């Protein structure tokens, strides 16, 4: 009897995590704790980084089998929404409900700045190919430059699901670092005179335009790049629901409860893809480096086109809003505002920068569609 008791206890101990812990799992748990520290204490995009970091923690607890790939586990089933490309478009639905496209409609030239900033994506694609990644992987790494979490997850789940953990963590970490990464590049590429440009007030936008805009964008972009249709379609659906003013309860749900539910499921399941065997490799370090390059090049391309537009319009456009084409809404627009105000305290660039900022969201969705199409 006593012997049986001892055997049972021994069996429990032998099947516990403590007895079966490879060093990789311990290291991953440590990394997860660092990310949790960044999310909670330093405030790095906590809405996503906290679930991602905790998902990573859960996935690397030995024997518990809670990773996204462990068939039958809770997180495996939550992960299906990522694998099948359901969660990112639904997050875009919520984002569309929260976005005001009026600054873009009032000044459609902002679309060009949104397009230029996507240069970071393709430049990084070249870099990733040179570093030895396959075209599909390079496409997934390049999309980090779009500075758009749901887009990055959407593309990666379609092109290179094995890199999902690293890419998601890189994307959200760099989005949190936009206020640190962007200003030096913006200041290096502009002159004092250009930074001090005060832009004309935006024209008022009628409700008719605000209602027709999402319908028009959906039709045009989906016809041109059908692979971008899930993302752009849901973004514009959300926006149409908001601007029409007739479906208020749907808008409230989409931007609150639905966003929160999907964020939780997406974050935990994406984090739980980062198991030791996939994450602890030189590829991850390369991805982190390439992600930084993507953001920097995207900012530079946006500012450079901003300079060109400044010259072409005879000084009417402040090049600092070009960096807001990197679609980290609204962080990049705030950075433009802050840098502009440093040089001219009466300069109020925020609304002008929101134009390129939201144009960048559409631009990165189009770029995502192109990448999925070419690298399929």
């Amino acid at each position, binding site marked *: 009897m006593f012997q049986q008791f001892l055997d049972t206890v021994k069996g429990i101990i032998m099947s516990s995590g403590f007895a079966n812990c490879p060093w990789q799992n311990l290291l991953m748990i440590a990394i997860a704790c660092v990310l949790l520290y960044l999310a909670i204490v330093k405030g790095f995009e906590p809405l996503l980084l906290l679930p991602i970091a905790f998902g990573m923690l859960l996935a690397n607890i030995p024997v518990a089998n809670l990773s996204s790939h462990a068939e039958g586990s809770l997180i495996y089933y939550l992960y299906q929404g990522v694998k099948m490309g359901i969660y990112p478009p639904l997050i875009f639905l919520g984002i569309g409900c929260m976005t005001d496209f009026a600054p*873009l*409609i*009032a000044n*459609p*030239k902002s*679309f*060009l700045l*949104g*397009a230029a900033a*996507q*240069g970071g*994506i*393709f*430049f990084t*694609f*070249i870099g990733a*190919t*040179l570093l030895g990644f396959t*075209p599909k992987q*390079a*496409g997934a790494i390049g999309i980090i430059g779009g500075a758009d979490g749901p887009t990055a997850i959407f593309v990666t789940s379609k092109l290179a699901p094995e890199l999902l953990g690293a890419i998601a963590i890189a994307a959200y970490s760099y989005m949190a670092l936009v206020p640190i990464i962007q200003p030096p590049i913006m200041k290096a590429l502009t002159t004092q005179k250009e930074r001090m440009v005060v832009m004309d007030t935006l*024209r008022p*936008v*009628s409700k*008719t*335009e605000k209602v*027709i*805009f999402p319908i*028009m*964008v959906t039709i*045009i*972009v989906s016809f*041109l*790049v059908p692979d971008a249709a899930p993302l752009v379609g849901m973004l514009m659906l959300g926006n149409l629901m908001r601007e029409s003013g007739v479906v208020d309860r749907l808008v409230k749900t989409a931007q609150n409860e639905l966003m929160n539910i999907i964020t939780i499921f997406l974050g935990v399941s994406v984090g739980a893809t980062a198991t030791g065997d996939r994450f602890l490799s030189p590829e991850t370090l390369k991805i982190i480096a390439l992600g930084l390059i993507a953001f920097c090049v995207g900012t530079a391309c946006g500012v450079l086109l901003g300079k060109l537009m400044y010259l072409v319009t005879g000084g009417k456009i402040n090049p600092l809003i070009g960096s807001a084409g990197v679609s980290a809404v609204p962080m990049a627009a*705030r*950075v433009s*505002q*802050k840098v502009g*105000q440093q040089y001219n*305290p*009466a300069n*109020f660039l*925020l609304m002008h920068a929101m134009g390129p900022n939201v*144009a960048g969201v*559409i*631009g990165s969705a*189009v*770029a995502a569609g*192109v*990448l999925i199409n*070419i*690298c399929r």
Partner: protein
Amino acid sequence: MEFALLVTITGMVVVFAALIFLTLCIWLLGKIVGGIGGGSKKDAAPAPQKPAAPAARPAAPVQQAAASDGVPEGVVAAISAAVAMMMGGKPFKVKSIRRQKSGRRPAWSTAGIIENTRPF
């Protein structure tokens, strides 16, 4: 490497083409909606002003103060006529006309804007 360059060029061209096309469509949309909405408003505004101005001038006895701050007499006359129209026929006296500092917001206003946008 060639494939990478091909993807880059294709990608940038497609993204720019799509967004330029969108730019044109939105600009056109703005013009169309603006044309329909603004045309009806503009006709109404100038008409009531014209009958009001000649009616106001004979009705109201206007006394002008001496032009101050170097404001030319013609400008004083124009300003007085505008005030007369706004007063709608009631007698009034223009006491002084001072040039306002143009283009600058009041200091409190600027301070308020800076305060509200600083958290960004």
